[in-house]
C-alpha cells in the first residue's frame, strides 16, 4: 500500500479538528455517522502495541510488537438533545444497560488531513459515568475500544446536509 500523504502545506501544523471520530447511529447497511467529541477539549486515540523485548545471548536486544489495541476517551460529553451519538449511547447504556450492544458498535475515524478513514465494525463503547459538578452540565464520559473488522476507505461529505458517507477501498 502506498504511503499516505498529508494534504496540508509543508511547514504548517495540522488542526486537531482534522481528526474526527463518528459513531454509526443507523444500521450496518445504512449507516448514519454521528460525530463524537462535541464539547470535548482533549481526546486522543491511544495505541497499545503490546510491546516486549528480550536480549539474546550475544547481547542483542530484540523487540516485538503486536497490532495495536486502540482506545480513546471522550469527556465530559455533556448531554445535548441535538447530539445524536450521545442520545443513542444514553439509551443503550443508561436506559437499556445493553452490554452486548455496547460491545458491538460501529465506529469511523476520519483522517481529514490525509484523506482517508478507517471503520471499526465491532467496537466497544463504555459509558463510564453519568453526572457532574453541581451547577454544571450533565456529562456522560465514554471510553471507546476500537475493534472488529477494520476497513480502510474514504469519506465524502454532503455539502447540503453534512452527512458523511464512507466508501471502502477497493
Amino acid at each position, binding site marked *: 500500500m502506498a504511503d499516505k500523504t498529508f494534504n496540508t502545506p509543508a511547514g504548517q501544523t495540522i488542526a*486537531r*479538528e482534522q481528526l474526527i471520530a463518528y459513531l454509526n447511529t443507523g444500521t450496518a447497511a445504512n449507516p448514519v455517522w454521528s460525530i463524537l467529541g*462535541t*464539547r*470535548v*477539549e482533549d481526546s486522543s486515540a491511544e495505541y497499545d502495541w503490546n510491546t516486549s523485548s528480550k536480549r539474546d545471548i550475544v547481547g542483542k536486544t530484540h523487540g516485538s510488537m503486536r497490532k495495536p489495541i486502540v482506545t480513546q476517551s471522550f469527556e465530559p460529553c455533556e448531554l445535548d438533545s441535538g447530539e445524536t451519538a450521545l442520545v443513542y449511547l444514553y439509551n443503550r447504556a443508561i436506559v437499556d444497560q445493553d452490554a452486548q450492544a455496547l460491545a458491538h458498535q460501529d465506529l469511523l475515524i476520519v483522517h481529514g488531513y490525509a484523506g482517508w478513514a478507517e471503520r471499526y465494525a465491532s467496537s466497544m463503547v463504555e459509558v463510564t459515568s453519568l453526572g457532574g459538578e453541581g451547577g454544571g452540565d450533565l456529562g456522560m464520559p465514554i471510553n471507546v475500544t476500537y475493534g472488529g473488522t477494520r476497513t480502510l476507505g474514504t469519506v465524502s461529505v454532503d455539502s447540503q446536509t453534512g452527512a458523511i458517507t464512507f466508501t471502502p477501498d477497493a
Partner: protein
Amino acid sequence: MDTTITNTERRTVDVDIQIAASRAIRAWLNTYSDKPATVGMEYLPDDYGMTLTVTETPYKLKSYIGGGYLAAYECDLIYRTIPVNDDERMTADETLNEMANWAVQNAQSLTIDGATIKKISRQAPALLSARYSNGAEDHTVHLQIIFEVK
C-alpha cells in the same frame, strides 16, 4: 522582542462572530422596554444617552476537538446622565442594575448568528465610572456574555 505565544494568552474569536455578536447584543438590549435611552455602540452624546462598549476582544474559554469553542464577550453598558442630586445618581445605578438583571434573566432570548448563548452574568453592580465638567456622569455595569460556536 519576545513573540512567544503562551498558553495563558487568550485566543480571540473569529472576526465574523465578533461583529455578529456586537450587532446582535446591541439590538437585543434595545428590546428592553424600560431603558432610559436607545443603546448606541461605543459613542455617547455629551449629556445623555446609553451605549455598549466592548471592553476586550471576545476570547475563547474552551476549544473543542471538533473545531467549536466556548467564548466570552465582555462589555460595559453605560448610562450617561446629569443627576442633580444623590437620589437621581442612585436612580441611575438602579436603572442600570434593573436592565442588567433583565439581561441575565433573559439570556436565552439573545440570538447571535452562528452561536448559541450559554449564559449572561455580571460580577458587580452598576457604579459611577466617570464625571465630566458639564455635570454629566457615566454609570456603568459590566456584563459577560458566554456563547458557544459548534
